């Protein structure tokens, strides 16, 4: 991999213009009509709001859209014609991703390529280069450091950008990132002697990882399917699923057939969430997760016990969006803290002190 380089603001703007002209989709945090920042398509760097507030939704919709067709059908007599959707996508650059959002995409690769290789997911993954901006911090609901990530985590990123005077220091992380830098070499300045800028004070957004020990939490979860904690914390939960919709790692989907008249239709997949009763309702009327506490338990257990047991890492990057979005004041870092305390208390008298 080539070493570090720098890019000036002007050259970054020119790079975006070059890419857009060559047919590459460019997505960046940008302000919309309602004044809020989301990851949006941009035609020029001037539209981007790099390093502004945390985008409202994560990056996952660029790989797993909130709704997408899987195929469509048309019937003529006894003949049924199935039309596939494309699984190859035009080149795409995400510029100014948050480290927590970029990491989430790589964490999701496990489940998307496990028993079945999701062609749509990996088609979009192959087409996309992610250039992540080192995180300037959000607020006290962040807990990325506790999940093994951090403001400068490179996981999931092809390139890392660190703000410096007049532009960015660019660190190449993957061959895909290298390819982009190499193809546009004239826009970059070699910076073999450039030292990485000093990280900003991490502040309250990055708790001491020891305060939320993930292995101890996973171990407690595996042993405490029935525990009063679940009924206690679920009381304020509305079961609204706002947490899952803004979560960079929640990836469950529903599959529906939408007919157009009698002979045509489309099969789609849509985001779904384990926080609703309908998610587990059986055709018989039985619901194995009848109450909200069972749904909260599922969300926490899947992220911090089932997923790490299966794939070796937690299904959470500590972005804090769930806590910010919750109208009922549910707070995942707080819940994990309570579990850590319970796990500590259970592991011996020394740990309980």
């Amino acid at each position, binding site marked *: 991999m080539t070493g570090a380089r720098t890019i000036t603001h002007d050259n970054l703007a020119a790079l975006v213009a070059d890419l857009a002209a060559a047919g590459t989709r460019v997505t960046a945090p940008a302000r919309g*009509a*309602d004044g*809020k920042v989301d990851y949006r398509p941009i035609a020029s760097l001037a539209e981007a709001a790099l390093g502004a507030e945390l985008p*409202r*939704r994560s990056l996952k919709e660029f790989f797993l859209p*909130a*709704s997408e067709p899987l195929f469509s059908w048309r019937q003529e007599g006894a003949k049924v014609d199935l039309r596939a959707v494309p699984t190859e996508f035009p080149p795409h650059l995400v510029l100014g991703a948050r480290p927590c959002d970029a990491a989430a995409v790589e964490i999701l690769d496990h489940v998307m390529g496990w028993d079945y290789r999701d062609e749509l997911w990996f088609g979009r993954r192959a087409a996309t280069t992610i250039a992540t901006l080192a995180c300037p911090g959000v607020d*006290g*609901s962040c807990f990325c450091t506790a999940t093994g990530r951090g403001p400068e985590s490179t996981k999931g990123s092809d390139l890392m950008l660190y703000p410096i005077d007049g532009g960015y220091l660019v660190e190449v992380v993957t061959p895909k990132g290298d390819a982009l830098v190499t193809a546009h070499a004239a826009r970059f300045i070699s910076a073999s002697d450039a030292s990485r800028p000093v990280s900003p004070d991490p502040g309250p957004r990055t708790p001491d990882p020891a305060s939320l020990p993930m292995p101890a939490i996973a171990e407690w979860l595996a042993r405490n399917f029935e525990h009063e904690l679940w*009924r206690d914390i*679920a*009381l*304020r939960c*509305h*079961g*609204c*699923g*706002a947490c*899952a*919709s*803004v979560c960079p790692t929640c990836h469950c989907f*529903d599959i*529906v057939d*939408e007919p157009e008249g009698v002979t045509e239709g489309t099969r*789609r997949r*849509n*985001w779904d*969430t384990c926080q*609703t009763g*309908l998610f587990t309702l059986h055709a018989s009327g039985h619901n194995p997760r*009848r*109450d*909200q*506490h069972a749904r909260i338990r599922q969300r926490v257990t899947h992220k911090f016990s089932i997923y790490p047991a299966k794939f070796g890492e937690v299904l959470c990057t500590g972005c804090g969006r769930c*806590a*910010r*979005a919750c*109208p*009922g*004041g549910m*707070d995942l*870092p*707080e819940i994990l803290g309570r579990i850590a305390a319970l796990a500590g208390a259970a592991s011996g008298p020394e740990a309980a002190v």
Partner: protein
Amino acid sequence: MKELRDLARTLLADGAVKVVIGYEEGPRGVRPAFITRPEHAERLIFDARCTHCLPAYLSPRRTHVAALGKPAVVVKGCDARAVAGLIREAQLAREDVVVIGVRCGGVTGDPTVAELASGTVAPRCDACDAREPKLADHVVGPALPAPPASDQPDMLARLEGMSAAERWEFWQEAFSRCVRCNACRQACPMCFCERCVADKTQPAWIESSPHGRGNLAWHLTRAIHQAGRCVACGECQRACPADIPLGLLNKKLAHVVAERFGYRAGDDPAVPAPVGAFRLDDAQEFIR
């Protein structure tokens, strides 16, 4: 605060209720609290951050809350309309809940923002006539001055001033952000159906896909089902992770219902809502 905590402690200690649903300090501002032990009554607070409409937790679909036993609920005067709505629509018997009214000086609409100012006050607090709760078994707290008037632009007036095409464009943009997470429905005190029409699959009256057609069908259905029932607590809009201004639809329909039927969702459960009433002298001919 002491009056509220003392009352909650007494209700729990005497066994009059099993849980007091109120407000407490959380990691991100104020949040709902479920106090089941007298010694935990100290956690209860009330201030301008207490925007949540707690009667939402009284609806029978909250099985995990109902399992605790008889509740007391802390309400602002405006929230009492939701208690009245649940009683009016036979979801709750008046004797099955102890209503603790708190005198209110306005809320900010954001549980993390404490300072009441013209830029932070919830627009619904403008011209509020319910700062002294009426539907309540107990009324606590000092009488507070009226909050400052909101300086936020009157979006409903702006929308009404638009052409139909401009309004269509406004809502198309807003609904395009909807991912159908259902937060608006779940947080609503008046969305208590055991099975929502949007969850029906055979037939699927409302497509669950968050595309233009599905989103329009959902939001229009939700709005119509709220006409004359919405208590204007603003929880749908606050819950929406996409910041869709759903309160505007509710407000417009409340105006229409007031104009056509002379009805406003109030705190008297004995006054029937137009959608649930049949009258031989109905002003609308088609229904007679």
